[in-house]
Protein backbone atom coordinates (compact mmCIF):
# COMPACT_ATOMS: atom_id res chain seq x y z
CA UNK A 1 0.00 0.00 0.00
CA UNK A 2 1.18 3.50 -0.83
CA UNK A 3 2.20 5.57 2.17
CA UNK A 4 -0.01 8.43 0.98
CA UNK A 5 -3.06 6.11 0.96
CA UNK A 6 -2.22 5.04 4.52
CA UNK A 7 -1.76 8.68 5.56
CA UNK A 8 -5.04 9.83 4.04
CA UNK A 9 -6.88 6.78 5.40
CA UNK A 10 -5.66 7.25 8.98
CA UNK A 11 -6.32 10.99 8.99
CA UNK A 12 -9.75 10.59 7.40
CA UNK A 13 -10.65 7.99 10.04
CA UNK A 14 -9.45 10.28 12.84
CA UNK A 15 -11.35 13.29 11.50
CA UNK A 16 -14.47 11.15 11.05
CA UNK A 17 -14.13 9.91 14.64
CA UNK A 18 -13.77 13.50 15.86
CA UNK A 19 -16.92 14.46 13.93
CA UNK A 20 -18.79 11.46 15.33
CA UNK A 21 -18.24 12.97 18.79
CA UNK A 22 -20.43 15.90 17.76
CA UNK A 23 -23.17 13.49 16.67
CA UNK A 24 -22.80 11.44 19.86
CA UNK A 25 -22.99 14.59 22.01
CA UNK A 26 -26.11 15.73 20.14
CA UNK A 27 -27.87 12.37 20.68
CA UNK A 28 -26.89 12.29 24.37
CA UNK A 29 -28.17 15.83 24.92
CA UNK A 30 -31.53 14.83 23.43
CA UNK A 31 -31.79 11.72 25.62
CA UNK A 32 -30.68 13.53 28.76
CA UNK A 33 -33.34 16.22 28.59
CA UNK A 34 -35.86 13.99 30.42
CA UNK A 35 -33.48 13.25 33.27
CA UNK A 36 -32.56 16.94 33.46
CA UNK A 37 -36.26 17.83 33.63
CA UNK A 38 -36.71 15.44 36.58
CA UNK A 39 -33.71 16.97 38.34
CA UNK A 40 -35.02 20.47 37.64
CA UNK A 41 -38.34 19.43 39.21
CA UNK A 42 -36.47 18.29 42.31
CA UNK A 43 -34.64 21.64 42.39
CA UNK A 44 -38.00 23.44 42.34
CA UNK A 45 -39.65 21.21 45.00
CA UNK A 46 -36.78 21.41 47.46
CA UNK A 47 -35.76 24.99 46.68
CA UNK A 48 -32.17 24.08 45.76
CA UNK A 49 -29.71 26.66 44.55
CA UNK A 50 -26.36 24.94 43.95
CA UNK A 51 -24.56 21.92 42.54
CA UNK A 52 -23.28 19.36 45.05
CA UNK A 53 -19.84 19.14 43.43
CA UNK A 54 -17.67 20.52 46.25
CA UNK A 55 -18.77 19.46 49.70
CA UNK A 56 -15.62 20.38 51.59
CA UNK A 57 -16.50 23.99 52.52
CA UNK A 58 -19.82 25.81 52.81
CA UNK A 59 -18.78 28.55 50.38
CA UNK A 60 -17.83 26.03 47.70
CA UNK A 61 -20.89 23.84 48.37
CA UNK A 62 -23.21 26.83 48.05
CA UNK A 63 -21.26 29.50 46.16
CA UNK A 64 -24.44 31.38 45.24
CA UNK A 65 -25.42 31.78 48.90
CA UNK A 66 -22.03 32.91 50.07
CA UNK A 67 -20.66 36.39 50.66
CA UNK A 68 -17.21 37.91 50.76
CA UNK A 69 -16.78 37.11 54.47
CA UNK A 70 -17.67 33.43 54.29
CA UNK A 71 -14.19 32.12 53.36
CA UNK A 72 -12.73 34.10 56.26
CA UNK A 73 -15.12 32.95 58.95
CA UNK A 74 -12.47 30.98 60.79
CA UNK A 75 -10.42 34.08 61.43
CA UNK A 76 -10.12 37.48 59.78
CA UNK A 77 -6.71 36.65 58.33
CA UNK A 78 -7.39 33.02 57.44
CA UNK A 79 -6.17 32.23 53.97
CA UNK A 80 -8.37 30.32 51.57
CA UNK A 81 -7.10 26.77 51.90
CA UNK A 82 -9.67 24.41 50.38
CA UNK A 83 -8.52 23.03 47.00
CA UNK A 84 -11.93 23.62 45.42
CA UNK A 85 -11.62 27.31 46.30
CA UNK A 86 -8.97 27.57 43.62
CA UNK A 87 -11.33 26.13 41.00
CA UNK A 88 -14.24 28.47 41.54
CA UNK A 89 -14.54 32.11 40.82
CA UNK A 90 -16.40 34.19 43.38
CA UNK A 91 -19.94 34.79 42.09
CA UNK A 92 -20.27 38.08 40.25
CA UNK A 93 -23.06 39.28 42.56
CA UNK A 94 -20.61 38.99 45.46
CA UNK A 95 -17.67 40.78 43.90
CA UNK A 96 -19.67 43.48 42.13
CA UNK A 97 -20.10 46.55 44.30
CA UNK A 98 -23.54 46.44 45.93
CA UNK A 99 -24.42 49.95 44.79
CA UNK A 100 -23.65 49.04 41.16
CA UNK A 101 -26.09 46.14 41.19
CA UNK A 102 -29.25 47.92 42.30
Amino acid at each position, binding site marked *: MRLSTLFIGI*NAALVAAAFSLVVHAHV*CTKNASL*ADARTAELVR*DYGLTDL*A*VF*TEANYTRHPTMTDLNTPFQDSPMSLEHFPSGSL*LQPPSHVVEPYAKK*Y
Partner: protein
Amino acid sequence: MPKSIERQLHLIDFTVGSILRRKGKNGALLFVYALVVFILASVLFFTRSLRNEAASVLANSPEIIVQRTLTGRCQFIPIGYADSLRTIRGVLSIKPRLWGYYYDGGFGANYTIMVPLDDTMKQGTIAIGSAIAKLRKSLLGDIIPFTGYDGNAQTFTVAKIIDHESALVSADLILMSEMDYRAMSGVPSGFATDLVLTVRNPREYATIAEKITRVLPDTRPIVKSEILRTYDAVFSWRAGIVLLLFAGTVLSFFIFSFDKATGLSAEERKEIGILKAIGWETSDVLAMKFWEGLAISLMAFCLGVLFGYVHVFFGAGFLFAPVLKGWSTLYPSFSLTPNINAGDMLALFFLSVVPYTIATIAPAWRIATIDPDSVMRS
Protein backbone atom coordinates in the same frame (compact mmCIF):
# COMPACT_ATOMS: atom_id res chain seq x y z
CA MET B 1 -6.10 11.23 -11.73
CA PRO B 2 -5.20 14.90 -12.31
CA LYS B 3 -1.48 15.53 -12.39
CA SER B 4 -1.54 18.03 -9.52
CA ILE B 5 -3.19 15.51 -7.19
CA GLU B 6 -0.76 12.79 -8.24
CA ARG B 7 2.07 15.22 -7.51
CA GLN B 8 0.70 15.90 -3.99
CA LEU B 9 0.32 12.15 -3.38
CA HIS B 10 3.96 11.63 -4.28
CA LEU B 11 4.92 14.45 -1.93
CA ILE B 12 2.87 12.81 0.85
CA ASP B 13 4.58 9.48 0.10
CA PHE B 14 7.95 11.13 0.54
CA THR B 15 6.87 13.10 3.65
CA VAL B 16 5.45 10.07 5.43
CA GLY B 17 8.60 8.14 4.57
CA SER B 18 10.68 10.97 6.00
CA ILE B 19 8.57 11.03 9.20
CA LEU B 20 8.88 7.27 9.56
CA ARG B 21 12.68 7.46 9.16
CA ARG B 22 12.69 9.59 12.36
CA LYS B 23 10.17 7.38 14.16
CA GLY B 24 11.43 7.98 17.69
CA LYS B 25 11.60 11.77 17.49
CA ASN B 26 8.29 12.22 15.68
CA GLY B 27 6.55 9.59 17.83
CA ALA B 28 7.59 11.41 21.01
CA LEU B 29 6.49 14.71 19.52
CA LEU B 30 3.10 13.30 18.56
CA PHE B 31 2.63 11.82 22.05
CA VAL B 32 3.44 15.04 23.90
CA TYR B 33 1.45 17.13 21.44
CA ALA B 34 -1.61 14.86 21.77
CA LEU B 35 -1.24 14.93 25.57
CA VAL B 36 -1.35 18.73 25.60
CA VAL B 37 -4.46 18.76 23.37
CA PHE B 38 -5.98 16.03 25.58
CA ILE B 39 -5.59 18.16 28.73
CA LEU B 40 -7.01 21.24 27.08
CA ALA B 41 -9.90 19.31 25.48
CA SER B 42 -10.73 17.54 28.76
CA VAL B 43 -10.91 20.86 30.62
CA LEU B 44 -13.03 22.42 27.88
CA PHE B 45 -15.46 19.49 27.70
CA PHE B 46 -15.76 19.15 31.47
CA THR B 47 -16.35 22.82 32.21
CA ARG B 48 -18.69 23.35 29.28
CA SER B 49 -20.86 20.34 30.24
CA LEU B 50 -20.94 21.27 33.91
CA ARG B 51 -21.99 24.81 33.05
CA ASN B 52 -24.71 23.56 30.69
CA GLU B 53 -26.00 21.06 33.21
CA ALA B 54 -26.11 23.78 35.88
CA ALA B 55 -28.02 26.14 33.60
CA SER B 56 -30.49 23.41 32.73
CA VAL B 57 -31.26 22.09 36.23
CA LEU B 58 -30.94 25.35 38.19
CA ALA B 59 -33.43 27.09 35.90
CA ASN B 60 -36.02 26.05 38.51
CA SER B 61 -34.14 27.43 41.51
CA PRO B 62 -35.92 30.00 43.71
CA GLU B 63 -36.65 33.32 42.02
CA ILE B 64 -35.52 35.56 44.86
CA ILE B 65 -33.91 34.50 48.13
CA VAL B 66 -33.74 36.95 50.99
CA GLN B 67 -30.98 36.47 53.54
CA ARG B 68 -30.47 38.51 56.67
CA THR B 69 -26.98 39.78 57.38
CA LEU B 70 -25.51 41.40 60.47
CA THR B 71 -21.99 42.82 60.32
CA GLY B 72 -21.45 40.96 57.09
CA ARG B 73 -22.55 37.60 58.42
CA CYS B 74 -25.64 35.61 57.53
CA GLN B 75 -28.15 35.34 60.38
CA PHE B 76 -31.40 33.48 60.77
CA ILE B 77 -34.18 35.63 59.39
CA PRO B 78 -37.39 36.27 61.37
CA ILE B 79 -40.32 34.75 59.46
CA GLY B 80 -42.22 37.93 60.40
CA TYR B 81 -40.12 39.78 57.80
CA ALA B 82 -42.45 38.19 55.27
CA ASP B 83 -45.16 40.66 56.26
CA SER B 84 -43.00 43.59 55.14
CA LEU B 85 -42.05 41.78 51.93
CA ARG B 86 -45.69 41.11 51.08
CA THR B 87 -46.25 44.86 50.82
CA ILE B 88 -43.94 44.98 47.79
CA ARG B 89 -45.97 45.01 44.59
CA GLY B 90 -45.25 42.03 42.35
CA VAL B 91 -44.40 39.55 45.14
CA LEU B 92 -46.68 36.51 44.78
CA SER B 93 -45.65 34.23 47.63
CA ILE B 94 -43.09 33.95 50.39
CA LYS B 95 -41.91 30.69 51.92
CA PRO B 96 -39.36 30.19 54.67
CA ARG B 97 -36.43 27.96 53.76
CA LEU B 98 -34.67 25.92 56.42
CA TRP B 99 -31.29 24.46 55.62
CA GLY B 100 -27.81 24.10 57.04
CA TYR B 101 -24.88 21.74 57.33
CA TYR B 102 -24.14 18.71 59.44
CA TYR B 103 -20.64 17.33 59.92
CA ASP B 104 -20.65 13.58 60.32
CA GLY B 105 -17.56 12.93 62.45
CA GLY B 106 -17.80 9.15 62.00
CA PHE B 107 -17.39 9.41 58.25
CA GLY B 108 -15.65 12.77 58.09
CA ALA B 109 -18.27 14.05 55.65
CA ASN B 110 -20.29 17.26 55.37
CA TYR B 111 -23.98 16.90 54.65
CA THR B 112 -26.47 19.56 53.64
CA ILE B 113 -29.60 19.23 55.77
CA MET B 114 -32.74 20.77 54.46
CA VAL B 115 -36.50 20.97 54.81
CA PRO B 116 -38.36 20.70 51.47
CA LEU B 117 -40.16 23.96 50.66
CA ASP B 118 -43.57 22.34 51.28
CA ASP B 119 -42.34 20.38 54.32
CA THR B 120 -43.36 17.09 52.74
CA MET B 121 -41.23 14.81 54.94
CA LYS B 122 -42.92 12.86 57.76
CA GLN B 123 -41.53 13.40 61.23
CA GLY B 124 -38.81 10.92 62.15
CA THR B 125 -38.00 10.09 58.54
CA ILE B 126 -35.36 11.41 56.16
CA ALA B 127 -34.56 11.27 52.47
CA ILE B 128 -30.85 10.97 51.72
CA GLY B 129 -28.71 11.69 48.66
CA SER B 130 -27.20 8.81 46.73
CA ALA B 131 -23.63 9.68 47.78
CA ILE B 132 -24.60 9.53 51.48
CA ALA B 133 -26.35 6.19 50.94
CA LYS B 134 -23.22 4.87 49.26
CA LEU B 135 -20.86 6.24 51.89
CA ARG B 136 -22.88 4.93 54.83
CA LYS B 137 -24.05 1.81 52.97
CA SER B 138 -27.58 2.79 53.93
CA LEU B 139 -30.71 1.15 52.60
CA LEU B 140 -34.38 2.08 52.79
CA GLY B 141 -35.69 1.55 56.31
CA ASP B 142 -32.28 1.86 57.95
CA ILE B 143 -32.02 3.97 61.08
CA ILE B 144 -29.41 6.74 61.10
CA PRO B 145 -28.47 8.61 64.27
CA PHE B 146 -27.42 12.29 64.21
CA THR B 147 -26.15 14.36 67.09
CA GLY B 148 -28.35 17.38 67.74
CA TYR B 149 -27.20 20.89 68.74
CA ASP B 150 -27.68 19.94 72.41
CA GLY B 151 -25.47 16.86 72.12
CA ASN B 152 -28.35 14.41 72.22
CA ALA B 153 -28.58 11.73 69.57
CA GLN B 154 -31.64 11.72 67.33
CA THR B 155 -32.54 8.83 65.11
CA PHE B 156 -34.17 8.95 61.71
CA THR B 157 -35.53 6.27 59.42
CA VAL B 158 -34.39 6.40 55.80
CA ALA B 159 -37.68 6.76 53.91
CA LYS B 160 -36.19 7.63 50.55
CA ILE B 161 -32.91 7.51 48.70
CA ILE B 162 -32.86 10.32 46.18
CA ASP B 163 -32.38 9.06 42.64
CA HIS B 164 -28.79 8.82 41.45
CA GLU B 165 -29.62 10.67 38.23
CA SER B 166 -30.00 13.90 40.22
CA ALA B 167 -26.77 13.39 42.21
CA LEU B 168 -25.33 16.58 40.78
CA VAL B 169 -27.67 18.59 43.00
CA SER B 170 -28.59 16.11 45.72
CA ALA B 171 -25.59 13.87 46.44
CA ASP B 172 -25.01 15.23 49.97
CA LEU B 173 -28.60 16.17 50.75
CA ILE B 174 -30.59 15.08 53.81
CA LEU B 175 -34.24 16.09 53.75
CA MET B 176 -36.24 16.09 56.96
CA SER B 177 -39.40 17.60 58.42
CA GLU B 178 -39.45 21.10 59.87
CA MET B 179 -40.06 19.78 63.41
CA ASP B 180 -37.05 17.46 63.16
CA TYR B 181 -34.88 20.18 61.65
CA ARG B 182 -35.65 22.62 64.45
CA ALA B 183 -35.18 19.94 67.11
CA MET B 184 -31.82 18.95 65.65
CA SER B 185 -30.40 22.35 64.73
CA GLY B 186 -31.78 24.44 67.56
CA VAL B 187 -33.20 27.06 65.19
CA PRO B 188 -36.18 28.44 67.15
CA SER B 189 -39.61 28.57 65.58
CA GLY B 190 -40.32 31.94 64.05
CA PHE B 191 -36.90 31.96 62.33
CA ALA B 192 -35.73 30.52 59.02
CA THR B 193 -32.40 30.30 57.21
CA ASP B 194 -33.74 32.53 54.44
CA LEU B 195 -36.97 33.42 52.67
CA VAL B 196 -37.91 32.35 49.15
CA LEU B 197 -40.02 34.72 47.08
CA THR B 198 -41.91 34.11 43.89
CA VAL B 199 -42.70 37.12 41.78
CA ARG B 200 -45.26 37.82 39.10
CA ASN B 201 -42.93 39.04 36.39
CA PRO B 202 -39.32 37.84 36.00
CA ARG B 203 -38.43 41.22 34.47
CA GLU B 204 -39.15 42.78 37.85
CA TYR B 205 -36.44 40.83 39.72
CA ALA B 206 -34.07 43.79 39.91
CA THR B 207 -36.79 46.28 40.89
CA ILE B 208 -38.15 44.00 43.60
CA ALA B 209 -34.63 43.26 44.89
CA GLU B 210 -34.00 46.97 45.15
CA LYS B 211 -37.27 47.48 47.04
CA ILE B 212 -36.38 44.64 49.43
CA THR B 213 -33.13 46.34 50.43
CA ARG B 214 -35.09 49.57 50.99
CA VAL B 215 -37.86 47.96 53.07
CA LEU B 216 -35.52 45.70 55.03
CA PRO B 217 -32.03 47.24 55.04
CA ASP B 218 -30.47 44.35 57.01
CA THR B 219 -31.29 41.86 54.23
CA ARG B 220 -29.56 40.77 51.09
CA PRO B 221 -31.63 39.57 48.13
CA ILE B 222 -30.17 37.00 45.72
CA VAL B 223 -32.08 36.73 42.45
CA LYS B 224 -32.25 33.71 40.17
CA SER B 225 -30.32 35.37 37.38
CA GLU B 226 -27.40 35.78 39.82
CA ILE B 227 -27.57 32.08 40.69
CA LEU B 228 -27.44 31.18 37.00
CA ARG B 229 -24.66 33.69 36.35
CA THR B 230 -22.61 32.15 39.15
CA TYR B 231 -22.59 28.80 37.37
CA ASP B 232 -22.11 30.39 34.01
CA ALA B 233 -18.83 31.81 35.29
CA VAL B 234 -17.91 28.70 37.27
CA PHE B 235 -14.71 27.12 36.03
CA SER B 236 -14.22 30.10 33.80
CA TRP B 237 -10.78 30.24 32.21
CA ARG B 238 -9.79 32.89 34.78
CA ALA B 239 -10.33 30.59 37.76
CA GLY B 240 -7.19 29.30 39.51
CA ILE B 241 -6.19 25.86 38.30
CA VAL B 242 -8.07 26.26 35.02
CA LEU B 243 -6.02 29.35 34.27
CA LEU B 244 -2.83 27.44 35.12
CA LEU B 245 -3.81 24.58 32.80
CA PHE B 246 -4.64 26.98 30.01
CA ALA B 247 -1.42 28.93 30.53
CA GLY B 248 0.57 25.66 30.57
CA THR B 249 -0.95 24.33 27.38
CA VAL B 250 -0.73 27.63 25.51
CA LEU B 251 2.90 27.86 26.56
CA SER B 252 3.49 24.30 25.33
CA PHE B 253 2.01 25.16 21.93
CA PHE B 254 4.22 28.23 21.87
CA ILE B 255 7.31 26.13 22.67
CA PHE B 256 6.43 23.57 19.96
CA SER B 257 5.92 26.28 17.37
CA PHE B 258 8.94 28.31 18.47
CA ASP B 259 11.16 25.23 18.36
CA LYS B 260 9.99 24.52 14.82
CA ALA B 261 10.12 28.14 13.65
CA THR B 262 13.63 28.90 14.94
CA GLY B 263 15.33 26.35 12.81
CA LEU B 264 15.72 22.90 11.40
CA SER B 265 18.15 20.23 12.52
CA ALA B 266 21.37 19.74 10.51
CA GLU B 267 19.91 16.52 9.09
CA GLU B 268 16.72 18.29 7.93
CA ARG B 269 18.76 21.15 6.39
CA LYS B 270 20.90 18.65 4.54
CA GLU B 271 17.79 16.85 3.30
CA ILE B 272 16.34 20.08 1.88
CA GLY B 273 19.71 20.93 0.27
CA ILE B 274 19.84 17.52 -1.47
CA LEU B 275 16.22 17.81 -2.63
CA LYS B 276 16.93 21.22 -4.11
CA ALA B 277 20.15 19.95 -5.73
CA ILE B 278 18.29 17.08 -7.45
CA GLY B 279 15.76 19.49 -8.89
CA TRP B 280 12.97 20.02 -6.34
CA GLU B 281 11.30 23.41 -6.56
CA THR B 282 11.03 25.62 -3.47
CA SER B 283 7.24 25.13 -3.65
CA ASP B 284 7.74 21.33 -3.49
CA VAL B 285 9.85 21.66 -0.35
CA LEU B 286 7.24 23.93 1.22
CA ALA B 287 4.44 21.52 0.27
CA MET B 288 6.41 18.65 1.83
CA LYS B 289 6.86 20.64 5.05
CA PHE B 290 3.16 21.58 5.01
CA TRP B 291 2.18 17.91 4.85
CA GLU B 292 4.67 17.12 7.61
CA GLY B 293 3.26 19.83 9.91
CA LEU B 294 -0.30 18.83 9.12
CA ALA B 295 0.38 15.13 9.68
CA ILE B 296 1.71 15.68 13.19
CA SER B 297 -0.67 18.41 14.33
CA LEU B 298 -3.88 17.00 12.85
CA MET B 299 -3.22 13.56 14.31
CA ALA B 300 -2.34 15.09 17.68
CA PHE B 301 -5.50 17.21 17.59
CA CYS B 302 -7.80 14.30 16.71
CA LEU B 303 -6.21 11.90 19.21
CA GLY B 304 -6.22 14.54 21.97
CA VAL B 305 -9.88 15.41 21.38
CA LEU B 306 -10.96 11.75 21.15
CA PHE B 307 -9.19 10.71 24.35
CA GLY B 308 -10.36 13.91 26.10
CA TYR B 309 -13.97 13.07 25.22
CA VAL B 310 -13.63 9.48 26.41
CA HIS B 311 -11.91 10.66 29.61
CA VAL B 312 -14.62 13.18 30.54
CA PHE B 313 -17.81 11.47 29.37
CA PHE B 314 -17.01 7.77 29.66
CA GLY B 315 -14.36 7.87 32.37
CA ALA B 316 -16.22 10.53 34.45
CA GLY B 317 -13.11 12.73 34.28
CA PHE B 318 -11.22 10.40 36.60
CA LEU B 319 -7.97 12.36 36.21
CA PHE B 320 -9.70 15.49 37.53
CA ALA B 321 -11.36 13.70 40.46
CA PRO B 322 -8.48 14.16 42.97
CA VAL B 323 -8.44 17.91 42.27
CA LEU B 324 -12.22 18.30 42.31
CA LYS B 325 -12.64 16.16 45.40
CA GLY B 326 -10.20 18.23 47.43
CA TRP B 327 -10.59 17.35 51.09
CA SER B 328 -14.20 16.36 50.87
CA THR B 329 -15.27 12.82 51.68
CA LEU B 330 -18.49 13.02 49.68
CA TYR B 331 -18.15 13.38 45.97
CA PRO B 332 -21.05 12.75 43.63
CA SER B 333 -20.44 10.13 40.98
CA PHE B 334 -22.38 12.05 38.37
CA SER B 335 -22.13 11.47 34.67
CA LEU B 336 -22.11 14.62 32.60
CA THR B 337 -24.15 14.95 29.44
CA PRO B 338 -21.73 15.38 26.54
CA ASN B 339 -21.80 18.87 25.21
CA ILE B 340 -19.52 20.10 22.47
CA ASN B 341 -19.42 23.68 21.45
CA ALA B 342 -18.30 24.31 17.85
CA GLY B 343 -16.55 27.50 18.96
CA ASP B 344 -14.46 25.63 21.53
CA MET B 345 -13.50 22.98 18.99
CA LEU B 346 -12.52 25.59 16.43
CA ALA B 347 -10.49 27.52 19.02
CA LEU B 348 -8.72 24.29 19.97
CA PHE B 349 -8.10 23.47 16.30
CA PHE B 350 -6.67 26.89 15.48
CA LEU B 351 -4.60 26.88 18.64
CA SER B 352 -3.08 23.46 18.00
CA VAL B 353 -2.98 22.79 14.25
CA VAL B 354 -2.51 26.16 12.55
CA PRO B 355 0.49 27.65 14.44
CA TYR B 356 2.42 24.38 14.28
CA THR B 357 1.80 23.89 10.56
CA ILE B 358 2.85 27.46 9.76
CA ALA B 359 5.86 27.19 12.05
CA THR B 360 6.96 24.06 10.18
CA ILE B 361 6.85 25.81 6.82
CA ALA B 362 8.59 29.07 7.81
CA PRO B 363 12.17 27.78 8.47
CA ALA B 364 11.95 25.39 5.52
CA TRP B 365 11.20 28.35 3.24
CA ARG B 366 14.30 30.13 4.58
CA ILE B 367 16.53 27.14 3.87
CA ALA B 368 14.88 26.29 0.55
CA THR B 369 15.62 29.74 -0.86
CA ILE B 370 19.37 29.48 -0.10
CA ASP B 371 21.77 27.96 -2.62
CA PRO B 372 21.72 24.12 -2.12
CA ASP B 373 25.50 23.92 -2.27
CA SER B 374 25.98 26.30 0.66
CA VAL B 375 23.18 24.59 2.62
CA MET B 376 24.86 21.18 2.27
CA ARG B 377 28.32 22.57 3.05
CA SER B 378 27.05 24.37 6.20
